[in-house]
């Protein structure tokens, strides 16, 4: 399998107008991934599957990941005139990372026995525009996994044959796997409560924790 750079050039050549970005991976497993843009994703996926040299005919894993807004404190060099002198000064400033929901696909080739190629699709934001093109028409193995991502994360997959909740009951409204999910208050008595269970116990038995 060629390196990601060659792959990127071939993808851009095959699907005109597709923006592809290589995301490095910090861990020693060195599995960098490709970030695709939303509107060309289906075409690129089709290319990845049908190209004879790549032949990624097996989408092993489709995962949802939630990246909420994070405030990063950074020291950046700022040119400031300190009492008249032009000087480089390090200054702390906060930078908000963009918040989005992400769907990660691990692609393998059963015919040529290579992989994994990791493909990432990101939604615009975490609140209203949370839709992504579904890859189920290309690989049917993503059918249940995309339903699970929709159920637990809330990413709406357009073009999915049968998008409904897979694990939770249909009337459930919230998305449990998001980082800012607040659990329903179904506290049950536990004889040894501590940490967050203790906090809940105190809420339920204000007179004092039932030690």
């Amino acid at each position, binding site marked *: 399998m060629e390196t990601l750079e060659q792959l990127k050039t071939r993808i851009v050549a095959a699907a005109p107008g597709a923006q592809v970005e290589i995301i490095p*991976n*910090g*861990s*020693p*497993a060195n*599995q960098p991934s490709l970030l695709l843009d939303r509107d060309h994703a289906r075409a690129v996926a089709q290319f990845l599957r049908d190209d004879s040299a790549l032949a990624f*005919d*097996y*989408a*092993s*894993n489709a*995962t949802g*990941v*939630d990246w909420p807004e994070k405030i990063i404190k950074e020291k950046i060099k700022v040119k400031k005139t300190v009492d008249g002198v032009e000087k480089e000064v390090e200054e702390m400033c906060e930078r908000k990372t963009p918040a989005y929901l992400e769907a*990660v696909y*691990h692609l393998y080739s*059963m015919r040529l*026995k290579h992989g*994994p190629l*990791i493909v990432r699709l990101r939604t615009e934001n975490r609140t209203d525009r949370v839709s992504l093109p579904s890859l189920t028409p290309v*690989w*049917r*193995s*993503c*059918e*249940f*996994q995309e339903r699970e991502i929709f159920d*637990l994360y809330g990413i709406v997959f357009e073009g999915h044959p049968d998008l409904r*909740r*897979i*694990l*939770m*009951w249909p009337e459930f409204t919230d998305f*449990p*796997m998001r980082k800012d999910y607040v659990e329903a208050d179904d506290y049950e008595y536990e004889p040894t409560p501590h940490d967050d269970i203790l906090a809940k116990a105190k809420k339920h038995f204000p007179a004092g924790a039932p030690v």
Partner: protein
Amino acid sequence: MATASPTELAASAPPSQIMEVAMGPQHPSTHGVFRMDVSLDGETVVKLKPVFGYLHRNHEKIAEKCSYLGSIPYTDRLDYICSLTNNWAYAMTVEKLAGLVPPERAEYIRVILSELTRLINHSALAGFLLQDMGALGTPLMYAFREREKILDLFESLTGARMMCNYMRFGGCRCDLPPGWIEQVRRLVSDFPKFLDEFEALLTGNEILQARTEGVGVLPAPLAVNAGVTGPMLRASGVNYDIRKVDQYGVYGRFQFRVPLGERGDVFDRYMIRILEMRESLKILEQALRDIPGGPIMDPKAKLRNLRPKAGEAYGRIEGPKGELGFYLISDGGPNPYRYRVRPPSLINLTVLEDMCLGQTIADVVVILGSIDIVLGEVDR
């Protein structure tokens, strides 16, 4: 009976005759809490929608609150028949994430334990499949008689029969007790006798052949596209065994073959599992022969607050049910940022409806039995 296409079937029967039946969640042969909304025309299946979620306890959210060491016992509860292969998949992924290398002896112990788990799973499956077909208990009891011997071996090594919690990232928890290798060697030497007995009881049986031949045929291209993995995929003739493809652990050193089926129907899936058991015995013999001495834990591995560098890793093994994968994203903290399990049972169920259309209720039960699902892994 030719598999009629869904539209053709639905059109033929007037709607009033279609009978909606909910098979499950309390049903004797759904292998756990699992429901299938089946609409029947007489006894022929016209539509089948699987419904999951009865055993969903959000294993992944729990793992995000637990430390890396803390979520190892939870992996036992994923596919509760093969706890050791779950442990291995998770431990291998954390080793990829944190860059740990288990010593030789630990790798050999892992291969031995995962092949023993494969024996348990395949023999139990053959027993449950026959139970679904109506042979009440006999094949299942013979399979469980052998399984008990293997579970006793697990108990003497890991402390528990099913919830072993034995493997750690960087190696294993404790070394083999004296005489354990000897007991495994004895078990491996007289397991083929059980297999021959099992095949004599079943494989030639005309009723079994009649009930399984041509039932639930899974064509190879649909299998590959739908992400089916494991014995079910190889029964359709696709040569894809992760032990051979990735050669993870020390599988590269063993000579064993990968049986491939021809037609991909229920009989092939049953036979593939029997043949795979024989291959596993070969691996076990080789592994028992040249297991080295030495430490069983990577000295560099820190069990308690392990904080791998920010990054992600996807590790996968050939579990008895298919490709069991773990996808971990770490942000440098003691808890994984994202912990994802790739469940072979859930993804193998994608093709359940395609295989069951046009068959009768009795076949739906047999086809579901041949897919080999465990609800702990499907619902997580």
